[in-house]
């Protein structure tokens, strides 16, 4: 389970984001992407010293300004569940490699998914 997939799973949960500047943003995460950009709703922003507060309906935070993100503990159980569900769907992707087999010699697909489809295309 990669860190960014944990973040994807945490969508919809309340998170705390601290920026490199020290400000903290508490809110419900609507969306996140591969660059860690985050869209939050119902946000409370606390200044670095903890003395000033702002409330805003939405916030969009650029990923490279983030120091860390705190996520509720129940999200880690949710990730195990999603991994389990994804593994159950896996057997269907074995036949995909045959189309590419001619171009790359089947080597690309053979290692990753089901080996049967990729290797068959080489010239049997």
């Amino acid at each position, binding site marked *: 389970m990669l860190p*960014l997939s944990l973040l994807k799973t945490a969508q919809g949960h309340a998170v705390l984001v601290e920026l490199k500047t020290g400000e903290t943003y508490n809110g419900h995460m609507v969306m996140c992407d591969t660059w860690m950009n985050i869209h939050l709703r119902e946000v409370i922003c606390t200044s670095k010293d903890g003395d000033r507060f702002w409330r805003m309906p939405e916030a969009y935070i650029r990923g490279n300004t983030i120091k860390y*993100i705190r*996520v509720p503990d129940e999200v*880690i159980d949710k990730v195990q569940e999603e991994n389990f569900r994804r593994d159950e769907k896996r057997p269907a992707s074995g036949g995909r490699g045959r189309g590419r087999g001619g171009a790359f010699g089947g080597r690309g697909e053979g290692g990753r998914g089901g080996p049967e489809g990729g290797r068959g295309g080489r010239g049997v």
Partner: protein
Amino acid sequence: MELLQEPSLPGAALAEELDKKLLIQLRDGRKILGILRSFDQFANLVLEGAIERIIVGEQYGDIPLGLQLIRGENVVLLGEVDPAHEVPRGLTQISEAAIRQAQKAEKELNKLKATLRSRMDFLDLE
């Protein structure tokens, strides 16, 4: 002490630390302890059961943080914690509120020292 095998690539080193309790030092000086659950090519880390340990003088305090995702660029260094030597020797543990107060007091003291020092600068003492 056993001889540890050198990992061939720097990227492989973090995989050996999975599910171990680590101490992470961040660029802002914070020290976070937690169990490493996952990482990626940018060294973004997922820590479970994370706590922040603040040390002021002879006292320290632990602040529970829970599940944390740390962006890799903010990490200075990290290392495995020996469970036998986890609590620093010679330090007493105090409550969260007390350590925060101590930290604030230390920050104020440092700020005061810095202003006094900058006022003395014109004297050009060697």
